């Protein structure tokens, strides 16, 4: 998901502060600050604004980071499930060309040397490795809550977008197909 407000959260220092404080302050008010800024940027629709605000965010984040760096730790990831290669390729009745059954990763010939900075520990924003589900009748969602939905082979799953915004990644499966949900 390439959402500007999500990008704000992607800002490494900010992300770390965001994640660390989130575990201390469970009220959610910390979360609202960056999204407020992001909304402002959305309204201006400008990359220059984005760069400017990003710089401000860094300075702001750094000051918080330095004052709050004692005792901060990324959120609890929990045990990572044992993963095994998929033994069979399930058949999907609905769509056999874009059938999730076939593992169709590609190989792209790309000689470009991409530069990617590494400033933060991996999983500074902790992904969801062990998603938990309830049936629709026990859903905590309200009617107009947006979800990312996926359905095939008679199974369906819904991921609340407000949760994806915070956690960004889910390692899951549907009907035997291992899936990676990202936002």
């Amino acid at each position, binding site marked *: 998901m390439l959402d500007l407000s999500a990008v704000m959260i992607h800002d*490494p220092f900010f992300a770390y502060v965001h994640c660390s404080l989130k575990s201390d302050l469970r009220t959610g008010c910390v979360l609202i600050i960056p999204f407020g800024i992001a909304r402002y940027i959305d309204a201006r629709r400008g990359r220059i604004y984005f760069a400017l605000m990003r710089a401000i965010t860094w300075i702001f984040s750094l000051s918080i980071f330095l004052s709050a760096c004692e005792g901060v730790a990324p959120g609890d990831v929990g045990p990572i499930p044992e993963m095994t290669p998929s033994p069979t390729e399930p058949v999907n009745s609905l769509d056999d060309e874009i059938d999730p059954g076939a593992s169709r990763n*590609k190989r792209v010939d790309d000689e470009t040397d991409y530069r990617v900075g590494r400033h933060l520990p991996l999983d500074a*924003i902790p992904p969801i490795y062990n998603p938990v589900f309830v049936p629709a009748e026990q859903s905590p969602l309200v009617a107009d809550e947006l979800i990312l939905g996926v359905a095939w082979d008679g199974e369906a799953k819904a991921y609340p977008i*407000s949760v994806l915004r915070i956690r960004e990644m889910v390692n899951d499966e549907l009907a035997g*197909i291992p899936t990676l949900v*990202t936002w």
Partner: protein
Amino acid sequence: MHDRRIDGRTEVFGNASTLFMTAMTWYDHRTESIWSQPWGRAIQGELKGIELCLLPSQIATWESWVSAHPETLVMTNGTETLGLFRERFDPDFVIGLLWDGQASAYYYQDVEAAGVVNDAVGEEPVLVWAGDERFHAYLRTLNGRVLTFELSAGELIDEQTGSVWDPALGLALEGPLQGEALRPVPGSTAFDWAWLDFYPDTDFYSP
């Protein structure tokens, strides 16, 4: 949403906690290669060049999703943040479709205003429907025949047979094609400039 198998082997992905072209990056636990999310491709490390298979997914309100898929499960991790944000599609939000190396993008508002769009990704005919903060995109070739869709009294109809279709399911509810299903097109949602960064050859739909 991607299939996270590489050559049949299931990989576990985490957050690489850094940005590439202002978009998120992943790492895989086995090799710690770095992946770009919009490409779904490893850009650094042992797996560089591997691209995951993009799977069709939808964005919908809970209400419309559960009425189309009553059997659905709901993820409950992190639901303390529920309701903090009321998501709406921004004016510069697009749905980007990827098919056979070609990309097309559609502004939500354009599709919503048109009701239904008969278009193509590369050479592949597609149907794009939008409304109620929802997007659905399907291939409109069925059993070798290309269908053309229109809205008639609020219902999605194909001009060839007059069958009535459910846009949320891509399923013909009534008429000669009753029970037939369209195939969803893999895609993603993004801001237009961000989409263009990663897919510069995109055809932008204009009404």
